């Protein structure tokens, strides 16, 4: 990865540079688009690029010049930051396919609430990222738009279903990204691509604009290259939403309280049935134990808990997810949503 490049900046660092005038948003976005042009043919993280990104960047630059010391907190916390959006999250005017041929030319006429709020904070949508079709998968191999390769080793998968978002961050083709998580689809690719992923508690973020797969389970998730960036994103998007009545009440994080030298006062739970499971590879277990040790060294309290119902987790997941997928995808029935394929009925009688 290009560590020395300014395209590797964290969002919070980029925002400081933009506000101080040392980086022009148009310049930054143009470099990022060039990088995508040159390496995405190998990674295949993106399905669609936002053709208006440079125009939006120019508008940002004008805003920065015209407002001298305008730091209106919320409204410019992500000023000029390039955002990759998973292709099951609605973006106004930008094709949204869910990596499916059934939606290959669908263009939403509205932004998802989370996208709207990130744009309101100054983020610029760079493009829509590849995923497992409709979110059903954990490797980003099951896409109608090709496989997304892991930027760290192109022979390996990027994880999924938010693999495109994770890969775009790992290869500096975006600074922050949105994914969705139903049964690990933000956490898995974040781990495979070695970036930060947050699956918020169900109901914390509005799902308005997220194209449904299993709506009792799924959440929009946040992805970035640092914990501070995740906190910035979270603060920009939390809050009740009239369009989605399952959002819980407002909450936000005090950014200044994110202190990397101490986790004093925080409690972590380790699930005994997971850590002792035969299903974990030894190197993975060792990494987990190392992480736990680090967390304890930073003064957090780590407690072991037992979750015997974990035994039924996968069965519950499959039952709920498959039943809901069957309902939510029933609309793609060739009548309400359809492809024009000449071979539609061939060989069926």
């Amino acid at each position, binding site marked *: 990865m290009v560590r020395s490049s300014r395209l590797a900046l964290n969002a919070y660092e980029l925002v400081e540079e933009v506000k101080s005038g040392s980086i022009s948003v148009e310049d930054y976005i143009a470099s990022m688009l060039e990088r995508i042009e040159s390496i995405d043919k190998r990674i295949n993280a993106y399905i669609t690029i936002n053709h208006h990104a440079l125009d939006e960047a120019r508008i940002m630059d004008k805003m920065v010049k015209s407002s001298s010391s305008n730091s209106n907190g919320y409204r410019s916390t992500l000023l000029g930051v390039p955002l990759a959006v998973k292709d099951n999250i609605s973006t106004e005017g930008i094709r949204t396919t869910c990596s499916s041929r059934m939606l290959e030319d669908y*263009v939403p*006429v509205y932004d998802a609430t989370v996208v709207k709020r990130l744009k309101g904070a100054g983020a610029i949508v760079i493009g829509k990222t590849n995923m497992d079709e409709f979110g059903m998968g954990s490797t980003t191999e099951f896409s109608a738009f090709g496989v997304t390769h892991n930027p760290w080793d192109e022979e390996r998968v990027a994880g999924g279903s938010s693999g495109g978002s994770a890969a775009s961050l790992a290869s500096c083709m975006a600074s922050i990204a949105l994914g969705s998580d139903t049964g690990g689809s933000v956490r898995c690719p974040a781990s495979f691509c070695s970036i930060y992923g947050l699956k918020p508690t169900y109901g914390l973020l509005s799902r308005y604009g997220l194209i449904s797969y299993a709506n009792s389970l799924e959440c929009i998730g946040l992805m970035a290259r640092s914990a501070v960036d995740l906190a910035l994103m979270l603060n920009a998007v939390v809050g009740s939403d009239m369009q989605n009545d399952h959002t*819980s009440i407002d909450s936000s994080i005090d950014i200044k309280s994110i202190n990397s030298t101490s986790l004093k006062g925080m409690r972590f739970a380790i699930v005994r049935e997971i850590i002792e499971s035969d299903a974990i590879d030894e190197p993975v277990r060792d990494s987990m134990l190392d992480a736990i040790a680090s967390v304890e060294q930073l003064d957090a309290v780590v407690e072991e808990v037992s979750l015997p119902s974990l035994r*039924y987790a996968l*069965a519950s997941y*499959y039952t709920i997810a498959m039943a809901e997928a069957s309902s939510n995808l029933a609309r793609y029935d060739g009548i309400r949503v359809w492809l*024009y394929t000449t071979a539609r009925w*061939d060989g069926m009688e």
Partner: protein
Amino acid sequence: MVSVEEVRHLAHLARIGMKDEELRLYAEQINEIIEYFNMLDELEIGNDVEPYRMSRGYKEMRDDIPVAFPADMLSNAKSMKGRFIKAPKMG
């Protein structure tokens, strides 16, 4: 348990063309998923379990006032005839 013939019928109903090897593979996979349902049958959940409820900070429904939908909402209709959307013939 689901048979290959039942999967063939399902595929027909869904208008999805499938080769014989695919039908066999999917029959196997469908049966694995059905096994999961059987696992849940082991559990005894009494009637006194409280369902989990999300808290809501505001009223659930908006007022019943008609709101016109934006004109561009029909931009994704592949073809229109006057006020109607043309859809493929069924049957």
